[in-house]
């Protein structure tokens, strides 16, 4: 497992500042998206895309995956396979379940406040049972 020489640590802080700025922009975008409600579950899709882009930026630049080859990339790829495995078989469960055995969605429970920014106080009654 020879550590690949990432000799080019020459690039200054500029690159990191740029990535950091990009991350801040994406965060702002996510917050903004949370305030408007897109129909048909598009909010969650876009939020997940943004989160994926942000994670990729962190992995590529802050964690130096861009400069590393071989074993490090293999490790990353392996972990991604296992994440896909976890998500895949869990989603297969929900997708093939008897519909009413799934958690309520906007369609099945119109009374629930939709959207990711439904704040806690509104939902507290469920908790107050005990």
């Amino acid at each position, binding site marked *: 497992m020879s550590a690949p020489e990432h000799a080019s640590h020459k690039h200054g802080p500029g690159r990191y500042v740029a990535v950091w700025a990009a991350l801040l922009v994406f965060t702002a975008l996510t917050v903004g998206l949370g305030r408007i409600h897109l129909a048909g579950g598009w909010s969650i899709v876009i939020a997940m895309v943004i989160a994926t882009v942000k994670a990729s930026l962190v992995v590529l630049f802050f964690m130096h995956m861009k400069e590393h080859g071989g074993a490090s990339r293999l490790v990353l790829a392996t972990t991604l396979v296992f994440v896909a495995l976890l998500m895949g078989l869990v989603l297969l469960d929900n997708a093939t*379940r008897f519909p009413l055995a799934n958690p309520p969605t906007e369609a099945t429970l119109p009374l629930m406040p939709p959207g990711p920014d439904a704040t806690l106080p509104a939902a507290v009654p469920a908790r107050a049972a005990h």
Partner: protein
Amino acid sequence: MSLSPVSIPPPSAEPAPLFNERNYLVAERGWRSWLTTLDHKRIGMIYLVLTLVAFLLGGIYAMVIRVELLTPGPTIIEAVTYNKAFTLHGVIMILLFMIPAIPGIFGNFFIPLMIGARDVAFPRLNLLSVYLYLAGMLIAIFGMIHGGADTGWTFYTPYSTTTITKVWPILLGGFILGMGSIVTGLNFIVTIHTLRAPGITWMKMPLFIWSAYATSVIQVLATPVLGITLLLVAVENVFGFGVFDPARGGDPVLFQHLFWFYSHPAVYIMILPAMGVISEVIQAFSRKNVFGYRAVALSSLGIAFVGFFTWGHHLFTSGQSAVDAGVFGVLTMFVGIFTAIKVFNWTATLYRGSISFQTPFAYVVAFLFFLVFGGMTGIALATVALDVHWQDTYFVVAHFHFIMVGGTITGFLGAIHYWWPKMTGKMYSEKWGLIAATFIFLGFNFTFVPQFLLGNAGMPRRYYSYPERFWPLNVASTAGASVLALGFVIILVYLLLSLKYGKPAGPNPWGSRGYEWQTLSPPPVENFESQPTYPRPPHDYDDANPAKEFH
């Protein structure tokens, strides 16, 4: 909670050349030298003391459970105390004993010795793992004294997020223990990749190293999922988050998915190191190199890999879809293939071997019995239709005790009896060793075979009382547990006595050709007096020339 190595008094000054006086145990003195040690051998010994304390605690809870179930109604404790007892029994035995024991003790001690290295790759991380273990243990014990959870070790939602007992300290303890487990796994992976001595290629690694490697990969890949899941339950319990609450769009079955994504592979974190031990002992005591080295080595990775595809077999009756249940049922059976590869190869190794039936080998035999019996009942349980009948009965309890506990404990006991002379430089009483092994084997069967019958007859697990028709089998199970406990006490007594009165072992009392026996007993701090060479594969007994023996 003292860390002082109470069980390891400095060896008395004996003139016998069979005992290395310049060893790692006495290289430095005082408890501070133990608390700050970076020596992988000392860290292994610290793990030995700590995990034995945990085992004792978990064993006490086990006996409390068995005594309570001696009669159909209330026997010695109240129902809620009973619920806490089986929860803590599970938490302690799994998180504090079975997962860390063999890697923590024997992995730390022997991986560097087996690959001709001076230490593990990150000695300081290694020490950190000890402190993470200790911290997790103390927090979990704190949680047991102040309240104690009653959820079962599985912490299923929604009960765990709404119970009035205090679960968060135990969840936090589990989280910290998980970090320790990841650190150990990472350390071993890097050690095995980078620190093998010249001559030890991948296909010349001792089989214990292969299984330790596969175990470490699981620890690194799966444990983070458990950590996050435990934290989610803790915050849901304390702050009322909605991840697992259907009233707020959550899903309690999601918890079971996440939990078992770790906890099924965790079975292989427990059993793979034991399989590694068995591979070593079976070669040394049949004086034959293993049949099908490649198959045995790579099947460890195979088990680690397929072990990740099976978690849903815990959810057959939990509301999981029928499609997913079928998929998981079939995938689960693949584990049987890789396990069978090992079992057949071990058996073929024994064939025409020169077997010496000493204590470590007695545990090999017990291991094979428990593994095959437990494994076959596991295949039966993976059959969805059968599982509907057996789910949450004592059949499941008996199954996982056979495979996990029977397998891990006999692997652990085989390891400690095989390597004790190397670790301490002393021999224990062989006669008492065999007597105790008999007690363990019979006691274990008398404890859990009745539980198979109880479960098949419909007795649910985790119940405080039962109908009178289940009485006789429960008495049999409790009697068996007592014999089992007696076996452990005998082992503890003669091992402790051997430290003071045992004969000096000499560098290689078994005539083993495993790599780790090429040094003095106990080993010097530097592991080897001079760097050994590795011209031959480990456990090469083909050439009977005694000059080829180590030392």
